[in-house]
């Protein structure tokens, strides 16, 4: 077998190569996010029928559920990157882990607020200390803890290692969030979408949801790559490749 894939990955791990790669991918990811997002909004807000129980209020699902998926997905990515950063001391993995945290925190915040706005008309309360809601709130605090710990150190890389450790420990919360609706009696409804087997939702409602899921995934890639590029410039400030970029983008 040829070993060009590990070779390519190895090269991609070097900051100048990744900087260029991320710069090439980012606009496409953002364009796809806009495209899928627009289609999902049209499908979700205009085409999908009203729910027979919840009326029009259920339309919050098209942003609430994809955001909730992203809050867990990004935490998993952050945890894996943090593990790689701690074990192999790869600078790029540190940057990916640390720059994932603010995006994950943003999606977790959206999940909590949209859930609250959905809960008020459906359950009659903005908030309740139930397993799903509480574990999602803990997820937000974990993200904020990682961000805070990272910035608490004078030395960026030392901060990244400390925060990576917290990120790894916090992974335990991700399955708790996911399975909380099965493990405990909760006000929150169970999973609507089932990867293995029949989903409890009609196709008219399902496809906008999946479209929005794709949109948020592409948005994450675009946002992460923009953040990673900036972070690499800051971290590698003294290097030649960064100097060339700083000089060539003098006007911007």
């Amino acid at each position, binding site marked *: 077998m040829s070993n060009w894939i590990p070779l390519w990955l190895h090269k991609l791990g070097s900051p100048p190569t990744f900087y260029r790669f991320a710069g090439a991918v980012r606009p496409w990811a953002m364009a796809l996010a806009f495209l899928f997002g627009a289609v999902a909004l049209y499908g979700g807000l205009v085409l999908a029928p009203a729910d027979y129980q919840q009326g029009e209020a259920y339309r919050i699902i098209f942003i609430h559920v994809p955001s909730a998926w992203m809050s867990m997905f990004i935490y998993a990515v952050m945890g894996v990157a943090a593990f790689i950063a701690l074990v192999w001391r790869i600078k790029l993995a540190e940057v990916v882990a640390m720059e994932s945290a603010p995006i994950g925190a943003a999606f977790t915040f959206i999940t909590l607020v949209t859930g609250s706005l959905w809960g008020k008309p459906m359950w009659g309360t903005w908030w309740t200390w139930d397993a799903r809601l509480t574990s999602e709130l803990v997820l937000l605090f974990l993200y904020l803890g990682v961000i805070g710990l990272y910035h608490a150190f004078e030395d960026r890389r030392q901060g990244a290692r400390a925060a990576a450790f917290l990120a790894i420990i916090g992974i335990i919360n991700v399955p708790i969030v996911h399975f909380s609706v099965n493990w405990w009696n909760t006000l929150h409804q169970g999973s609507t979408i089932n990867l293995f087997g029949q989903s409890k939702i009609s196709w008219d409602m399902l496809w906008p949801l999946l479209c929005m899921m794709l949109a948020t995934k592409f948005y994450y890639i675009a946002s992460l790559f*923009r953040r990673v590029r900036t972070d690499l410039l800051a971290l590698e400030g003294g290097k030649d490749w*960064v100097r060339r970029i700083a000089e060539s983008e003098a006007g911007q």
Partner: protein
Amino acid sequence: MNAHTLQGFFAMGGYAAYVWPAYAVFFLVLIADTIAPRLRRRRVLRELRARLARQSVRQDRARQDQARDRPNGQSILTPPSP
């Protein structure tokens, strides 16, 4: 959509006060998440250029000093080895 008018669409079957703020939060948070790194990138590049400018001033001064002190001497500012 059950309501066929634009008004009916915005009314969201009486749930407008919950549905639209939810969508507003979604977009506002993501817009903020897009703008923040953009501003940071600009700041990082500005600081880098300021540092490079300071460095080049220092190098020019060193070169002038060297030209005055030892006109025929070996350069103390050797270019970086390849």
